[in-house]
């Protein structure tokens, strides 16, 4: 026990040393993780499961305490981090594509992505476009040709607000397929993916847009047919049967990543420590187990590139939102 602990510490220290070449930072005492939602949501899961694995890997000295701070779709926690926690190098905040979407659309008033440090991603849930088993659409292309003829011919149901991530996934795919008049495509927003799927299966709405983990129950029962998953490659395991949009000739990718940001004004070596810690966590067997049992898919930009990825995603969402007239 002692030996393995020492080795890990040395390894972590070595990583930090090679990366920064300066004084090694080590967290001392309590580390906090803010989940910007009520207990039970995705961000809450990110904090708690990452906290557990960080403890197991002994990348943190004691425990990681999860704090729930719901409000404004993560805006309350973002404002708290920006205004009250500057320079706190023992604070992680859970984030996802929902965070970048809101940042891109200016829904955190007066705040932008540069006001925090983006640390890394630990996996993703990929977008899907699905229909009920009785639907006439057999593949993504037939659905898209229908949209090309009349953008109001297929109505989509999803779990996010109008202009939210579930809505944007439809637009990303439709745009890649060459559909014109994107704002005309009807999107019906529900409280969550489950409610939206029930309406699609009940035959009240034509197609479902959401994440792959949401569809698993109805996928197994055979009530739902997933036309395409919006990932670069086919997903592992049982989901390998589902074709990607790319292989159907529609270049659309929609990862809902899960990751972290930290407050601004922290030392460079402290930031590097956490970037490396997330790298080590992502590579560990313990984390692979967590991903497998929770349906989380591989997604991990190389260390240092995450910040650039976040900015790119925000730019993309911004231009798409402008195109559909959601923001000016």
């Amino acid at each position: 026990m002692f030996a393995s602990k020492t080795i890990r510490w040395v390894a972590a220290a070595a990583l930090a040393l090679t990366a920064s070449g300066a004084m090694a930072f080590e967290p001392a005492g309590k580390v906090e993780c803010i989940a910007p939602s009520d207990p039970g949501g995705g961000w809450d899961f990110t904090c708690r499961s990452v906290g557990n694995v960080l403890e197991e890997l002994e990348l943190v000295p004691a425990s990681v305490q999860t704090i729930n701070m719901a409000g404004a779709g993560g805006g309350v926690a973002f404002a708290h981090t920006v205004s009250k926690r500057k320079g706190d190098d023992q604070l992680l905040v859970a984030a996802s594509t929902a965070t970048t979407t809101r940042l891109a659309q200016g829904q955190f008033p007066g705040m932008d992505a540069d006001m925090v440090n983006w640390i890394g991603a630990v996996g993703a849930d990929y977008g899907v476009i699905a229909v009920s088993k009785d639907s006439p659409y057999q593949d993504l292309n037939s659905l898209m040709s229908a949209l090309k003829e009349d953008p109001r011919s297929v109505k989509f149901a999803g779990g996010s607000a109008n202009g939210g991530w579930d809505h944007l996934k439809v637009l990303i795919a439709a745009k890649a397929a060459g559909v014109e008049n994107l704002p005309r495509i009807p999107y019906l927003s529900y409280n969550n993916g489950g409610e939206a799927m029930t309406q699609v299966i009940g035959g009240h709405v034509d197609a479902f847009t959401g994440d792959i983990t949401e569809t698993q129950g109805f996928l197994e029962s055979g009530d739902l047919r997933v036309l395409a998953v919006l990932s670069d490659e086919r997903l592992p395991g049982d989901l390998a049967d589902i074709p990607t949009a790319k292989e159907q000739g529609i270049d659309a990718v929609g990862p809902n990543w899960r990751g972290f940001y930290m407050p601004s004004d922290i030392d460079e070596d402290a930031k590097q420590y956490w970037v490396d810690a997330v790298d080590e966590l992502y590579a560990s067997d313990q984390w692979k187990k967590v991903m497998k049992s929770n349906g989380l898919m591989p997604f991990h930009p190389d260390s240092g590139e995450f910040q650039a990825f976040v900015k790119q995603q925000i730019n993309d969402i911004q231009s798409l939102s402008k195109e559909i007239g959601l923001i000016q």
Partner: protein
Amino acid sequence: METLHYLSLGFGVALQPENLMFALMGCFIGTLIGALPGLGPANGVAILIPLAFTLGLKPETALIMLTAVYAGAMYGGRISSILLNIPGDEPAMMTCLDGYPMARQGKAAEALAISAIASFMGSLIATIGLILLAPLLARFALTFGPAEYFALFVLAFATLGGITGKNPMKTLMAAAIGLIIATVGIDLSTGTQRYTFGVLELYEGVDFIIAIVGLFAVSELLFFIEEKAGAGREMIKVNPLKLKWREILSIMPTTVRGGILGFIAGVLPGAGASLGSFITYTLEKKIVGKKGYFGEGDPRGVAAPESGNNGASSGALVPMLTLGVPGSGTTAVLLAMLVSLNITPGPLMFTQNADLVWGVIAALLVGNFMLLLLNIPLVGVFVKILSVPPMYLLPIVTMVAFVGIYSISHSTFDLYFMIAFGVAGYILRKLEIPLVPVILGLLLGPEMEKNLRHAMQISDGDWSILWGSGLSIGLWLVAIIGLVLPVVVGPILRRRMQAAKEKVG
């Protein structure tokens, strides 16, 4: 068969030691809350919601505890009806009629035991009804599109006041207040903010839980303070129990009738437990006829309303679990709890959260046995607690409410918000504006709006989609009946209830 499989799964959840413990705790606290005059089941559940969050309970455990409180409150309501002639909650009013005379004849223990057995039977029958009906209704719910849901919400609002409701204008006003509060926050259909004034905390709208705990629990505290948190009541003596098997058997047919009738009254939106107990009492009086001595301490007059109101309380869970439309104030509070735990009631819940739903249903069965055991030998304990001065209860409730709300979001904003709701609730109650419609407006308003707009989106703006299916036409008809019936039948029913009460008083 599938139902049996799920039910056994449910028992697996309900019989876990932790869940059993919280069910027992919920039963005990629930009976207590029911017994305290004025503190109804909706308030009771609202007060305990923060406790569930403070303890960091798992969703199924939290829900099991709160349904146990709900069931317990229905049992407890009869205690003060029988001993003090003051109903612990509204549905227990009919129990006064024969329960108090029995107590005055020195048969208080018998009256308490009979009412406990009747409560048990009513609950048991209705829970079996729930097990049989809920999965059927859940599958049926798939046929509900936006137009049908919209009609269903209109129905829920139309029957809001209930058939026995006193002042329809005030009920309507209360519902409107709820609807107004519900418009705050992001508008899902367009993605724009409404009435948020740049305050980040308002972006997701007003949290139901904060509104409920404020309106019910905090306003209750203010009332306690106003009444000087005075001394407890005098001790009441309960005679030793002498109940023969023959007597228990003689009330069985009454309880079976009461349970079934109560269940039906509970399933219907807007009817609820008060009507359940009233109908069963009146019917029982008709059936027994001249052989009975109703109003003068007939055991059947205690058994009928008790089985009726307990049956109705389980019945009210059916529309809440399957369609997400609560049939009563307490089920509305339970619905808010579900929503804040990220669980959406409806057909999906019966498969995706099977362990939770069936765990709660199984816990209702288990809790029912617990309540019977608690309520016969331990009835003396509850009688003693009835005489504890409220000044000892007050600080406990205050602490639980504040710690609980803070532990949900770690935001002082929410605490101020809760206090504001408490003061608003106090003022509304002073004006005799009912609080339950406020909560229903807040809960159902956004859903109703969303479904109307979805229907319009699907039909490309054609209003006739709203009455485009047989199901929605049926729902509209029931809504119209629900709106008209109270005006016609309400005054008659109310006069009869009043007359029945005065005859005893």
